[in-house]
């Protein structure tokens, strides 16, 4: 039975699924060890996210930048690149989208909203293009350069806010309504959550990534370069240009994630004393989602559920929210060590076959 399953189409889904289940299980063990009630804890997460509209709305709201960050990481990964710089690209996108909205105040919504969104996407793309160029031209490893670009983005945006767009509360002014993704209807539907129209942007971005990677000649090249730069070069593809493009697209998705925070959730950008962390979570989302559009959505939904539900878990079941971070860490750890899960499965399959 196990054997048949392993040869089947659903097998690739197995490692992420089992990681989630085991992650929740081990998390429960830790809660027990700490004297908390795991069933009550998970129940409170479930009930809040699925039965209380406010938390449902907040979960989807949390999902939006997580999914976009996950898409950014996944896209680069398909070309064999490890974009650790999603965080920085997100900050760049966030700032530029907010800045564009404020500077072009007075434009009609039909122009200003798309302009602000695209400005954020473009800023992220540029922030991704730089390490892409360094990699393609000078073979600078993208992990190093994107990490450094994160710091540059963090402190540059802080500087720019402080000196050019500062207002009371250590932040930029609020963006004009014409640039806002916020929606009274959505908020009302979800009893006052900050849910905004950005979920449509995330959906479109997921579709776009799927389309580029699997339906276009560009995606074919990007994937070819990702699997085997040597063979791609032998086939006459321009490896450097594909690396550059991959990082640019990736940065664009990250920039969109930032724009969603700026134009949707917060309506401004604050001076960040440290990284916001959404870009880094994107790495985990992509990993759990196996670098596919659909997978990224599911993984983003899971992490958003745990994060949002973690708040009620704290208040209702008295379990500290840090435990949810442990559960998330466990899941990522288990996905990362998927090798072990596969090994165990193979053993089981062999035993089954002997009988």
């Amino acid at each position: 039975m196990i054997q048949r399953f392993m040869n089947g189409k659903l097998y690739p889904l197995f490692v992420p699924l089992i990681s989630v289940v085991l992650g929740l299980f081990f998390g429960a063990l830790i809660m027990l060890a700490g004297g908390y009630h795991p069933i009550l804890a998970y129940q409170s997460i479930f009930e809040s996210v699925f039965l209380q509209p406010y938390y449902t709305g907040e979960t989807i709201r949390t999902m939006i930048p997580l999914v976009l960050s996950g898409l950014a990481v996944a896209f680069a990964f398909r070309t064999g690149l490890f974009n650790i710089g999603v965080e920085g690209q997100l900050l760049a996108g966030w700032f530029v989208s907010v800045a564009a909205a404020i500077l072009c105040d007075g434009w009609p919504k039909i122009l200003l909203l798309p302009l602000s969104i695209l400005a954020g996407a473009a800023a992220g793309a540029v922030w991704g293009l730089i390490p892409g160029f360094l990699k393609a031209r000078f073979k600078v490893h993208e992990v190093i350069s994107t990490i450094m670009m994160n710091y540059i983005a963090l402190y540059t945006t802080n500087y720019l806010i402080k000196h050019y767009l500062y207002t009371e509360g250590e932040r930029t002014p609020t963006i004009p309504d014409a640039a806002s993704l916020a929606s009274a209807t959505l908020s009302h539907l979800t009893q006052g959550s900050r849910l905004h129209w950005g979920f449509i942007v995330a959906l479109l971005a997921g579709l776009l990534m799927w389309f580029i990677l699997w339906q276009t000649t560009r995606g074919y090249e990007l994937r070819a370069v990702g699997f085997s730069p040597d063979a791609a070069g032998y086939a006459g593809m321009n490896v450097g240009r594909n690396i550059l493009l991959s990082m640019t697209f990736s940065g664009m998705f990250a920039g969109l994630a930032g724009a969603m925070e700026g134009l949707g959730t917060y309506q401004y950008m604050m001076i960040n004393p440290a990284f916001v962390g959404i870009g880094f979570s994107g790495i985990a989302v992509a990993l759990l989602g196996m670098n596919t559009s659909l997978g990224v959505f599911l993984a983003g939904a899971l992490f958003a559920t745990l994060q949002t539900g973690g708040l009620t878990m704290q208040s209702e079941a008295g379990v500290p929210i840090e435990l949810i971070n442990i559960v998330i860490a466990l899941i990522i750890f288990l996905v990362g060590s998927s090798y072990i899960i596969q090994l165990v499965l193979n053993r089981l399959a062999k035993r089954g076959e002997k009988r």
Partner: protein
Amino acid sequence: MSYAIEMRHIRKEFPGIVANDDVTLQVKEGEIHALFGENGAGKSTLMNILFGLYQPDAGEIYVKGQKVKISDPNEANRLGIGMVHQHFMLIDKFTVAENIVLGSEPTRGGKLDMNQAVRMVRELSDRYGLDVDPLKKVEDITIGMQQRVEILKTLYRGSDILIFDEPTAVLTPIEIKELMDIMKRLVREGKSIILITHKLKEIFEVSDRCTVIRLGKVIGTVNISETNPSRLAEMMVGRKVRTPVNDTPYAPKEKVLEVKGLTVLDNRKVPAVRQLDLEVHGGEILGIAGVDGNGQTELIEAIAGLRHVQEGQIKLNGQDITGRRTRKIVEAGLGYIPEDRQKHGLILDFTISENMVLQTYYRGPYARAGVLNHKVMARKAKQLIQAFDVRTPSEKTLARSLSGGNQQKVVIAREMDRSPALLMAAQPTRGLDLGAIEFIHNQLLEEKQKGKAVLLVSFELDEILHLSDRIAVIYEGRIMDIVKPKETNENELGLLMAGRKEARRQA
């Protein structure tokens, strides 16, 4: 008669396949026993059982008359069985001596005694005529030398029975000859050898007896002195094998490839091709013979636009392609079967369907306005799979999961389907079994008959001699001479390959 190794009625099953079915192998003491069969016939499985990596489902193993159970490689070592792997298990940064003693280092007072190790390695090397310098780092010695280090590793551990797994796959002709001598010497010194191979020539050169395996079953064990190559080949493949020979008349047409004064640098920025001139015509197969590392790789990479041309000119179909990008050269009429099909010829994690359009995906009918047409791609792949007899469950199968021979068929199908004016084939049959080699040779000959130009680079002299209309011998980046296969022999070629031109007149 005592046997060094006797494996009786071995059976081993893997999910969906019987790898060994009632296999009996008897290796006499002091003989070289060849284990002969196509890829996937079950040779490696059998040897992995002997070496303790797999457990047999049924059957018995006797070592020097004693029934044994070999539970792991350490146990095999203890019984005096050593394996010289096809892919070397050496640490590049370590010296030869360090690699050899690794795992059972000589110590003095609890400290590693390197002097002792070097002494022991040197002694062993002298005794078996291996000529290995124990103090050199592995990364600094040739592949042939590295293999000798592997041999020494087994000798150091006291092995009496040595298993050689396809030992010549990675060697040059001269290294192969040296290895054969080493094997003979080992046997003279009292060792027994099992030689796993699918090359007939080697079997007839060194082995005493040969066991043929096909589809997991033993077809028979024969004395080499009492058989001949075509009979053995027939046993292995299960049908008569015709060695394809270039016997159609030589009627060269227009110049397709013209290389003039070409100079190309290798990775160390040293000229590997020097002022080389070469012409290939339509309707001919030009073979390039030479020892590995004399500029062949750099020459074909330069023609394919993958390596910078330092000096000189390359014309394809009358068009100057010097310094052009690979894509432009491919569009100008180049087909290229690269030496390393897994690294350069295929994207292993792409499906067959995706691999079949690796150079044409951006053009109609496979794409329109940058959007792929998967249906047309699949249709094309299905057609080529059938025409080239690629054994695969479907066109959606990943290239990675095909056997070596079928991977090569995918590459060849793709290149030939574009009907290029010039087909460059670098080592097109390396590591393939007889059936696949026969197929590929026939395909190359067919290209000639279609009036295409074929440039064949190979280290296998037989392949060059059988297929070429003209043979260009390359030495240190220059063409030493161009000879006709009918007017030359292996001896003359061998001398030319070693850079001795005067050989021409003497031969």
